[in-house]
Every structure is written in C-alpha cells, then in structure tokens.
C-alpha cells in the first residue's frame, strides 16, 4: 500500500527498475541515467521525509506494512520465550510478552500486538488490549523484577479497548495500577513508541526510565480523529487536530515529555524493517547499559521526578 506522499517516490523507483531491466535485456549502458535517477530518488525522499506534516507521520505510524512488536522482537533477539496469560481471566492476544535474549542480555519484552491480515487483526483485537492484557503486562514486569532483568515495553496501540467486558473487568483500574506500580519497579524500564501511542492504552505500559519514540510515530491523549469529532464535531478535521495536538516525536521531545527519538531508515520503518530493528536494538542496549550504572533507589527517584516535572502552568 502506498500513501499519497509516497507515490511520486514509488513512481521514480519503478522507472529506475524498468530502466535497469531494459539495460539488461538490450545490453546498453545506462549507468549515467541510473545514477542520476538514483540521486533524484534520494533527494525526493529526503525532501518528502524532512517535511512530513504531523498527519503524514500519523499515517506512517499506521502503515499496514510497518513492523509490529513481535516483528521487532524476532528481529532483535536471539531467543524469545513468549509467556501467556494474566493468571486470572485469560490470555489477551493484543498484549504480548516474554523473556528474550539480546546479544546475551536477558530482557523482558512486552508490547501491544497488531495483526497483519483480517483474521490476525481480529485475534489481536487491532492492538487494543483489555484489562487482562494490562494485568498480564504487570505480571510479566513483576517477574522481570524478581529475576532482576530489565524491561522493554514496545508501545503500539490505537487505545485500550472500549468494550462492555473491558468495563466490567475494570479497564480504568488495570491501567491506573500499572502506571502506579511501574514507578516502583526496581529494574530499568525502557519504553518505546513504535507506532501508535494512544492515550491511557499507551501509558498503561508507558512509565519508563527512558521513554523513546521512533521517528514516525505519535503519542498523545487522543487520536486526531476522535479529537476532531469532539472539538470540531466532525471527523473531517483530523489534519488540523493532528497539528493542534503536537503529537509527533519532535513535538514531544521539544516539550520534554519524552527522552529521545530513534531514527528510522529514510522512507520509514516499513520500507526497511532490518534497518529499523538494528537501530532499535542499538538504542535499547545503550540505554540498558546507562541505566545499569544508576542505583535502584536513584533510578526510581529519577523516574518519579522526571514525570513530576511534566506540566505547564502559571503561578
């Protein structure tokens, strides 16, 4: 699938591909033209991706070919043992997790999981976890703490599931408890927004010593569409809403609401999963190393103080 702003790039890429084939079959030297075309593509890509609007970043964050939590886990870890269930109600397939090994370092990986096709999307409930998903995540975090392993949360959700049973089983309580308990975890916690970071559903696994966002993701209190429908009373103003919400990685770091941005390959993570994973892995290992140098007490204090400083008010 191509997004509107990806089309001119794709057209040039197709042209390049055709030319290369033509040269091969007819045995003519087109290296000059190929080179200039490649430069042109590179230039256009840079221009396009440096000037993305906020809404375009939202579109990239939801790209159907974008890597999801399990994709990254399988790309960056040598071993992964998935752990299921909240020991209470059931196994929520919108929230996955388990012990993994990254270059010999054992970590607890947790994250929302979206589906690639219709059937998977249904199974994964579009990455919208129920309370048992949040409780499973907390159970896994406690286990990581018990065995003194760092925790990595990969966040990618359009929101916590707004369903009947979710309410019956205390969606609000589950998220609230996670937020509170995550502050007191004795092990390092790194949270990365890898796609969509929608509101309570995201922050329910989002309290970390380092909170990072990949370049083409969003993190806010509401989706641009819902914001548009509430404030403008129509779904039509999503672009305006995205601008107003200042929900991109650049915005969020500018407002000191996150700690860092993870670069994506030019063209977005969906065009180069290996490249994106490599960068993610590098950053995770770097931050784990940094955080291991800090004492448990200091880490918890700093985690609390960091979030306590967030806010804008006049007195």
């Amino acid at each position: 699938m191509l997004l509107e702003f990806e089309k001119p790039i794709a057209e040039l890429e197709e042209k390049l591909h055709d030319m290369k084939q033509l040269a091969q079959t007819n045995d003519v030297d087109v290296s000059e033209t190929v080179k200039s075309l490649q430069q042109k593509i590179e230039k256009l890509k840079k221009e396009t991706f440096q000037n993305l609007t906020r809404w375009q970043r939202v579109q990239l964050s939801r790209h159907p070919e974008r890597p999801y939590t399990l994709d990254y886990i399988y790309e960056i870890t040598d071993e992964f043992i998935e752990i299921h269930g909240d020991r209470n109600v059931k196994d929520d397939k919108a929230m996955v997790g388990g012990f993994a090994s990254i270059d010999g370092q054992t970590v607890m990986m947790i994250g929302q999981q979206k589906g690639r096709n219709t059937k998977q999307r249904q199974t994964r409930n579009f990455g919208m976890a129920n309370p048992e998903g949040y409780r499973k995540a907390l159970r896994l975090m406690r286990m990581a703490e018990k065995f003194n392993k760092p925790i990595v949360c990969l966040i990618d959700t359009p929101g916590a599931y707004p369903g009947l049973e979710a309410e019956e089983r205390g969606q609000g309580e589950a998220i609230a408890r996670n937020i509170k308990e995550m502050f007191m975890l004795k092990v390092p916690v790194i949270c990365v927004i890898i796609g969509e970071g929608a509101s309570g559903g995201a922050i329910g696994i989002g309290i970390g010593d380092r909170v990072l966002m990949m370049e083409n993701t969003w993190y806010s209190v509401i989706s641009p569409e819902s914001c548009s429908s509430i404030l403008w009373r129509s779904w039509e103003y999503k672009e305006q809403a995205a601008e107003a919400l200042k929900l991109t990685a650049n915005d969020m770091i500018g407002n000191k609401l996150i700690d860092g941005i993870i670069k994506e390959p030019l063209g977005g993570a969906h065009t180069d999963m290996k490249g994106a994973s490599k960068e993610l892995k590098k950053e995770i290992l770097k931050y784990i190393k940094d955080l291991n140098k800090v004492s448990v007490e200091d880490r918890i204090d700093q985690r609390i103080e960091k979030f306590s400083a967030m806010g804008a008010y006049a007195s």
Partner: protein
Amino acid sequence: MAWFKRTNKGIQTPTESKKEAPDGLWYKTPSGKIVHMRELRNNAYVSPEDDYHVRIGSKEYFEILFDDNKFEELDAELSSGDPLKFVDSKPYPARIEATQKKSGLTDALRSAVGKINGTPLVIACMDFGFIGGSMGSVVGEKIARAINHSLEHKIPFLMISKSGGARMMEAGFSLMQMAKTSARLALLSEAKIPYISLLTDPTTGGVTASYAMLGDFNISEPGSLIGFAGPRVIRETIGKDLPKGFQSAEFVKDHGFLDFIVDRRSLKNKLSTLLKMLEN
C-alpha cells in the same frame, strides 16, 4: 361584571418595579421532584423525595465536609498555561479566561486542608463546571502538591473526582498528569498514609485510569456514572445498546471495583469513622 374584564391591555408594570424570581430558587430532579434550594442545601444537595444526588462542586463539598466550613486552600494561585498554542473553535487561553469568568474558578480542581469531625484531612475536589472537569497541567500539579502536603504533614488524603477525563487542549501534557499524580500516590502508599478516592458523577477517561481508581478505598455516591470509556464510545464500538445500569456506581461495585457506596448525607460521618479506625 366588569371585574374580570381586562381594561388595560399589555404589561403595565414598569421595568424598575418588576420583581425577579431569583434564579435557581427551586431545583427539579430528573424524575421531576421539585425541591427548594435551601432545603436542598440543608440536605447535602440530595433531593429528599427521590434521593437524587445533585452534581455539586468543590465549594459545596468543602461546605459539607469541613468542620464549620473552615479550611485553608492550597495552591489557589495556579492557573493554566498554553504550552501547545492550542486553537480549535477558539484559542485555549480565551476558553480558559471565559470559563474562569463564568465559573469563578481558576481551574477544574481546588484543594484544601482542614478538619472533618476533628480529624485532619487534605481534600482535592474537581469542578465539573470547568471545561467538563477536564484534567490538565493545573489539575495534575495541584493534586501532586496536595499529596505532598499529606506526605509532609502525615495527613490522610481524600480525592473527589468528577471529570470527563484528560483535557485535550493540553494533549501530551494532560496525558502525563496521569503519570505525575500516580507517582505521588505511589509515594503516599509507601508512607502508609490513607488515601480515599471518592468517584462522583461522572468520572471517566484518564481520571478513572489514574488517581481515581488508586485509592486504598474507592468509594462513590449512589447512581454515579463511572467508567473508562464513555457510554457513547462503547455503544459505537460494540454496535449494541448497553444494559440498564451499565457503568453506574452500583454496577462498578458489583464488579468489585468499589469498596462501598455512600449517601452524601452520611459521607462526612462515614469518612471520619473510617479515618479514626485507621488511626486507633
């Protein structure tokens, strides 16, 4: 028989001698019961005929709870910034200013310290009249500071929630207030200072998903709407009508997420009894 015949047509009373019926002299409950405002006030804003709990704000809760309505307000000067330069149908600062004028409040929460039946208590209370009781930086910071006051003076904390959730106009900043308030509550919990969360009508969204559900005691008033997602959103998501009483305080208690429901007329005594039990 001229006495019933109208001789002068039209309204003859001059404007200056017109008698205004004071606004809000009577209150009509949803089931149609009519009650005089003074009777309502003397009855903790509960309609005597049908026990309907009228939505009230910080002013009324402070009056109901604090002994002789005596209290020291905390951080009253905090008011909203405009970190995102947010504009929808009007700029955010203009919306704040208009709401401040209309409501006489600075933001959607007031906090204070005082005594209830002799027991010291810090109360933070939300005002739904201020942009739907929405939680932004000011609400978050005032709650954090109120909890700090509890921590410093070892005084129990009562949070009265009444909110549609996080304030959209502060986007990411609002979201992080969920974290900030929960962090302070984690410290309060470590210090073993009691935290009572009173969820009143309505409490939804990011407020439910943070401090409102984190009490040692989560309590509510009869008939309050309490939930994470709003009923409209859920109805649209599942494509079905919601069962009667869904997300009412009674429903939430039945599902195990509230400790008890208390009639507002006995709120003060029940709270002070509970706090005294924990003390002794």
